[in-house]
């Protein structure tokens, strides 16, 4: 079966985001960018399905500016067979992304789409669920285990009280949680090979999706700062401070 993995280029997770002084957004000039960590897990899971003989082809797709092709090449180096770049310089929202992805789902007809559960920049946690709604497919979000059996996919989900397993009819949409797998590193020969793998570029505005903004970003501010408090000498002083000064115990 064919597996489609949408990925996103985001700020590297080790970098602390800085707000622009004019408060219009977060400053991303000269900031290290990388593949969103949850997307890496999605790619890894798709590759494992291919190695297990369950998947026949893995297609990576991204939506964004030209620079996003770096992340597609990473996906190809990790083992994806081909890549699709939907090119746009617009800042798109989850609903736009889901609608564009729905067009690719229509075109490629993958039986499984695996996405990250959220991107670490916008922290929305929406795209997979929206794509499932638009393509009328079942959804297995926050997956920590994915098993394809007899035309169904069993997804163990990380929920607030513990774990929940659901069975979805294929085709289906899965979003990954951190514990689904440990992503591999791309080897140098694979990085070289990835340069020759097919990468199709499609202009976003040719897909017939209305990309009008639905949400207006009014301002972005630094959160209220917490300042370092005091260092106590020992446990007795700590307990004393908590009782008499902070009055929390």
């Amino acid at each position, binding site marked *: 079966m064919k597996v489609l993995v949408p990925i996103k280029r985001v700020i590297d*997770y080790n970098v*602390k*985001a800085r*707000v622009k002084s004019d408060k219009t957004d*977060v400053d991303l000039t000269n900031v290290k960018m990388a593949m969103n960590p949850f997307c890496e897990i999605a790619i890894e899971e798709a590759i494992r399905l291919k190695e297990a003989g369950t998947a026949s082809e893995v297609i990576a797709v991204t939506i964004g500016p030209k620079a996003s092709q770096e992340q597609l090449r990473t996906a190809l180096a990790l083992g994806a067979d081909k890549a699709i770049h939907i090119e746009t310089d617009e800042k798109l929202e*989850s*609903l736009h992304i*889901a609608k564009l992805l729905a067009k690719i789902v229509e075109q490629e007809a993958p039986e499984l789409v695996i996405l990250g559960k*959220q991107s*670490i*920049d916008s*922290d*929305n*946690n*929406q795209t*997979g*669920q*929206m794509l*499932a*709604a638009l393509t009328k*497919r*079942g*959804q297995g*979000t926050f997956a*920590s285990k994915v098993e394809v059996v007899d035309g169904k996919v069993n997804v163990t*989900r*990380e*929920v*607030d*009280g*513990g774990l*929940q*397993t*659901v*069975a*979805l*009819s294929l085709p289906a949409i899965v979003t990954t*949680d*951190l*514990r689904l797998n440990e992503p591999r590193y791309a080897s140098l020969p694979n990085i070289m090979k990835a340069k020759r793998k097919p990468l199709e570029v499609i202009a976003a505005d040719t897909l017939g999706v209305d990309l009008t903004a*639905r*949400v*207006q970003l*009014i*301002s*972005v*501010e630094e*959160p209220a700062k*917490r300042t*370092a*408090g*005091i*260092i*106590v000498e*020992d446990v007795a002083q700590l307990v004393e*401070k*908590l009782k008499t000064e*902070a009055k*929390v*115990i």
Partner: protein
Amino acid sequence: MKTLVIAEHDNGVLKPETSKTINAAAKLGFPIDVLIAGENLGVLSEEVALINGVASVLVADNAVYAHQLAESMADLVLSLADSYSHIVVSATTTGKNFMPRVAALLDVAQISEIIDVVDAETFKRPIYAGNAIATVKSLDSKKVITVRASSFDLQTEQASAPIKAVNTVSDSALSSFVSDEQTKSERPELTAATVVISGGRGMQNGENFSLLHGIADKLGAAIGASRAAVDAGFVPNDMQVGQTGKIVAPNLYIAVGISGAIQHLAGMKDSKVIVAINKDPDAPIFQVADYGLVADLFDVLPQLEQAL
């Protein structure tokens, strides 16, 4: 203009997130109906009716909704959506699961995890793991919103609101429930506890988390963990506090053997008082802690339990 809030409950227990989310919805300034979906909801729907600000309770009591699967829940909410300008749910794993599906079916954007209501169409929400706060305005006619419950207080009580049955039954063929594996705990729930004590990689193994038990018992605290402790397999993942785990804002948060990575801070930095116990004086956690103790946790934890 009317608001629909979807109640959060689990195994016959109404979650405190419901009351906090109703409080957030009240700031929109419109009448609030609350939908509760599940099985055997008699007592729960009466509890919801007592929360201040609830105009009426809509009860979808059917086996189909027992596990609140996204596909059926989304169809149910969609069937009621015409009467409401705002649809609101708490950003728990259940709410996060079905709400974007509702938004897409309505063809509107979703505003995720709001921490403040500016007006009926403008909201504040954290982005970049809480390193920035965005103020966003929804341009859609219908607003679909999830709420970070820890940013809002519990709502007070009122005289019971009327309870109405909803008879829509949506049994989706797309998905079915297989099994549940609940983590059992005698302690207060992490997101609702007034005191939280969390262990990190410094705990070294799962057994050492028992060092936290005595302290948690004396303080009536819930026990949490950093992602490092969860990934190392010390404790189950539903104990994880952080950007990708639970967001907590207790009166007292005690971080033990936790360095204070961005991802962890995103889940606890709105706590009233933060205490850090770490043997590394340069650990970033000390930059946000009100009280820091630079010491070996294995020496300090037994002393702390004694002293309480």
